[in-house]
Every structure is written in structure tokens, then in C-alpha cells.
């Protein structure tokens, strides 16, 4: 299931994969979590970082993240589509951005390659952990913004995919 999520003024696309792994803006993020209060509070570990997230209010959704308050929202994509009548926000073009600052270890593809949905595109080492960046859709790599060995900031554009039918 895919969700359109907002946290503060950030918008993210979250897909629940399995075993605590989530696909966040096309990047696999391994979380390890426990529910510390039924439906109210979770302790979330991501690559060693410990986050305590509390649901302060549900409607509107307000979260307390390690003592910092933020607004948030989540909508499953079909609901989102229904509500916006717009379908997948990005249309036929997919921009891959770095989900967190880190070192781009490997680039598995070259410009022009056509990759299957879910195929690994690059490996980003961040927060003492390697994150596989997967192709969100079947498509052609029309641009590679950075090469292996580069340090990238969070949100930095890495590559662009053009959807192939």
C-alpha cells in the first residue's frame, strides 16, 4: 500500500514493504520499531537513530518527534487520487532524490539504461547503513546527476527516470 505523507512542510511517498522496511521517496528505509503505547506512541529506530514519536492529536494529526512538535498527514494513494483527482503526482517523470545526506557508494546503471521497477539504481551510505535506491517504476534513466563516491545532501537530485510502457 502506498501513502502520500506530509511531515511539516515536507511531502513524502511512503510504501510499506515488509519487516519494518519502507520505501520512502523511492528509497528503502529499514526501521525497527515497537509500539510503546497502543495507537499513541512508537519507538522507531532507523540505522541506530532512536526516535520516540507520539501522536499528540489525531485530527488534525500532530506528532511529537523526540520532543519536537510537527504537523503531519497520511493518505493512501487511491484516496489521495480520489481527493485530488490527479493520480500519481509526478506523472511520467520520476526524480530520484537523496532521502538523507550520505555518500553515494555505487551507481548500478548508466544513462540510457532501461530498468525494471524495483531494480537497484544506486547505493547510498548514510547513518552507518547502506541504502539501496530502487527504481520506483519501469523506465529509462534519462539523467544521472551524480557519480559514485560523491557526498550528497539530503534531498539532492540523483537521477531522473522516464516511465517506459
Amino acid at each position, binding site marked *: 500500500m502506498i501513502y502520500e505523507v506530509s511531515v511539516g512542510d515536507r511531502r513524502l511517498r511512503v510504501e510499506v514493504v515488509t519487516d519494518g522496511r519502507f520505501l520512502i521517496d523511492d528509497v528503502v528505509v529499514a*526501521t525497527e520499531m515497537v509500539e510503546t503505547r497502543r495507537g499513541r506512541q512508537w519507538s522507531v529506530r532507523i540505522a541506530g537513530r532512536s526516535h520516540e514519536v*507520539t501522536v499528540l*492529536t*489525531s485530527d488534525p*494529526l500532530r506528532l511529537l518527534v523526540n520532543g*519536537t*512538535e510537527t504537523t503531519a498527514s*497520511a493518505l493512501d494513494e487511491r484516496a489521495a487520487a480520489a481527493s485530488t483527482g490527479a493520480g500519481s503526482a509526478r506523472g511520467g517523470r520520476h526524480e530520484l532524490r537523496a532521502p538523507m545526506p550520505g555518500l553515494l557508494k555505487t551507481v548500478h546503471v548508466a544513462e540510457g539504461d532501461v530498468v525494471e521497477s524495483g531494480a537497484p539504481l544506486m547505493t547510498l551510505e548514510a547513518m552507518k547503513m547502506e541504502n539501496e535506491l530502487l527504481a520506483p517504476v519501469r523506465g529509462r534513466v534519462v539523467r544521472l546527476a551524480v557519480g559514485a563516491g560523491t557526498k550528497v545532501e539530503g534531498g539532492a537530485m540523483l537521477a531522473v527516470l522516464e516511465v517506459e510502457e
Partner: protein
Amino acid sequence: MEPGRRRPVALTPPFSAVLVANRGEIAVRVIRACRELGIRSVAVYSDADRDALHVRLADEAYPIGPAAPRESYLAMSKLIDVARRAKCDAVHPGYGFLSENADFADSVRDAGLVFVGPPGDVQRSLGEKTQARRMARDVGVPVAEGTAEPVRDLDHARREAERIGYPVMLKAAGGGGGKGLRAVASASELEAAWRMSSGEAAGAFGNTAMFIEKLIEHARHVEMQFIADTQGAVVWLGERDCSIQRRHQKLIEESPAPSVDDALRERLGDAAVRIARAAGYQNAGTAEFLVDARGAFSFLEVNTRLQVEHPVTELVTGLDLVALQLRIAAGEPLPFAQGDVRRRGAAIECRVTAEDAQSGFVPATGRVALLREPGGPGVRVDSGLFEGLMITSDYDPLLMKVIAHGADRTEALARIRRAVQETIVAGLPTSLAFHAHVLGEPDFVAGRYDTSYVATHWPPRATVALDESAVAAAAVVAVLALRTRSARRPVAPPDGAWSRAGREDGLR
């Protein structure tokens, strides 16, 4: 103060039973003092407060009617009736409600009970602002330019405002607590301001008389705590800076005041003591001053009661103001002299309120669904909260006071910041986001602030920046919360697969 310097504490309880004529955290505070002194505590509660903490912690508790204050916490006859039936010998009013109502002080006395606070006539003379100002001027305490007599109509107000010169402050002559308080920048604003303020004053104090004084811009609100016994001894205990306010409601208080040096502290203390003597004051009180950018101060008014922010002074001096109030009310002399008072370190208080800081501090209601009060070194919590408590709009929005003490302002600030970060009140919007922001905001951290601070610093321009990892955690929980709400079954298995994944990354 060092134990050596302190005269031995009388070991007999000052009273056998005290009626606590209040609710919420201050009722709990007074009940705690009673318990520590061996006094039977008698609580009262409205229909909205049957399960309140002050009811459960008191030795006795009596219902006094509907939620509406006028029918319960402001109903003098009911309170005095309970005090009689429960065989109390004293009444502690806390703050707010009837704490500055001279008639209540009188009727408590007339009922043969001791009122824990200054006598009614002292309250009257200090409660009427123009009279209090005259009293201060007479003993050589500077007061801001203002009207010598209460102003009863708009024309009179116009003339006075012209004479004083805009901008001016409109204040209810008969009361405090920010009600009727309004700044007027120019003549064109006066009429509207007058109608609103006198209207508020009428509602709150049954007295439309107003008082006009010169508005001092970029001033700090600095108040001096003092205490006087019935034998005429008066001692000042130290100042508090309460400039972090919105709509004249304090949100953060600290002592020492960043702007006050030892010399100014002495002068403020001396001024407070002189006013107290002139008024024949008894019990604990607070003299409020404005301190301008150049360190010149002018007297505003005297609060003839315990202040919400009294713990700040307790942490710095090591004194228990409520215990002292009770002993003094029973006729005991102050157990120390001015020279015995020792101030140690710095203290900062945050008033956590049921107001949505994110949307202009609109009052919020709801049930406390999850509560975590902070703890550890230097942290004190005065609270009436518990999980399951319903917060209604019937009363003052104050939920909890988080107060921190440190060896200096740097340490106190680090501790209150840490404590606020630990605090969780889930189930309704609160002011906590405001406190978390201000405690880390450069101007506040540097002690550079005055009464205009909130207007100029909240809401912050930039939204708080969560790092990518925290954003991911929040996003995931947003999804889980959505799922939990739709399908009521555990989404994150408390252990098992996911934590296995975790252990791997931990041990590899």
C-alpha cells in the same frame, strides 16, 4: 539559606485544618504544604472536578456546585459553609478566583476563620491602583506618569491621555490579572479601547473605573517577591522577570532577571519593602515594576496573593513560600531576617497551558491521553494532570508548571530545555511547542527580551527543521497511526521480525 543561619522551625502545625479554596495545580500545591506541616487539608470541587487530583490528595473534599465559577469556586457563602462544617481554622485562597477579593477576606475573618493572605483593608488600599500609586510615590518609589484619580468617563479619559501623552495604557482601576488592560497608541484608538476595557473591567471587577498611565515601550516586567509577618517584619526575597507574556498573560518566568544586577535588585527589594510597610502588609506579596532599557524602574502594582510563578523564588532561595504563608497567618514571626536570605543559582518556569501555541494560543480542550512529566536533576513539576483527565473550557488553561533550577542561568536553561523536551501531554493541543522554541531561541538564550518578545518572536518564521531520519520516523508513524485508526489491530508487532532486523544492524 544555610541551616545554621535559620532559626529552628516550629514543630507544631500552624493550623489544625485549612480549607483550600481553589482547584488545579495550586490547590495541589497548598494541599502538599498542609500535608508536610501536619495540617488537615480540606478541598472543594465543582461538578467538573470530582475526579481532580486536588480532591484525591486532600484529606477531605466537599462538592460546592456547578462548573461555572460563580456557582462554585467564587461562591463565598458555600466556601465558608464548608470551612465551618469541616471545622477548618483557616482558608487559603491560592491565586485567581477569590484570592484578591477583599470582601472574601473580610467574610472569612467575620466567620471566625483566618484568611491566609493580607487583610481585606490592605487588599483594598493596594487593589485600587491610583491609591497604590500614591502610596508608592509617598514613600519615594518611582511610578510611571499616570492619572492620580480613577477615570470614570471617556471625556475625562481623553483629557488625561492628552496630558500624559500617547502611547498610554488603559487599566481597570479596580483589578489586575491583565483584565481591562489595553495599550492605546493614539487618540483615534482611545474610544474603542475605552469601551472594551471598561466593559471587561465591569464584568471582571464590577467596577468600570479606569486608570491611565504612560506606556513604557521595550520595558521588562520585573516583579519583587516580599513577605511580611504580623509583627511588622518585612523581607524581600528576590525578583522574577516575567516579560515573556502574551495578552498580558505570563508564559515564562525566571530569576535572577537577566537585566537586574545586585545594585538594582537591592533598590527593587527596598522599594517593595517600603511599599509593604506603608500598606501595613501581612503575608506574601509581589510588587510589580517596569524596568526600561536604561535600568530605570517604575512601580506598577502589588499582587496581594501567592503568584503562579512562586516556585521560581522557592528554588533560588530554598524557602517554602506556602509554608511561610501558613505560619505567618497563624501569627508566627518570620523565621529569618533580610540578611539570612541566601539566593543560589537560577530558576526558570514554563507555564504549560491548554492553548494551541501553533494557532495563536486559542484555548484547547480534550482528554489527557498520554502524560509524561519530566524528572531528574534540577527539575520540579507542579501539576494537576493525570491520564484520563478531561480538560474543559470552564477554567484557567494552566495545566502544569515545569520549573528548573541550576547553579547559573546556563545550567537552568539547559535543564528546562531538556525537561520541556521530555514532557508529553497528548490528547489536546498545548503551549509546549512555544516553550520548546523560546528556550532555544537566541534572543531568549542571551537574555535579550522585553514584553514585546512574544509579538516579535512567535510564531517563528521557519518551521522546526527535523533531520531526514526524524522525518522518516514521523512519516512511518503517520502511516501507522492512519492504519491503526482505520483497522484497530496492532500494526507494529511489539517484537519479533522487525526487532530482529534491528538486532542485525546493531550487531553486524
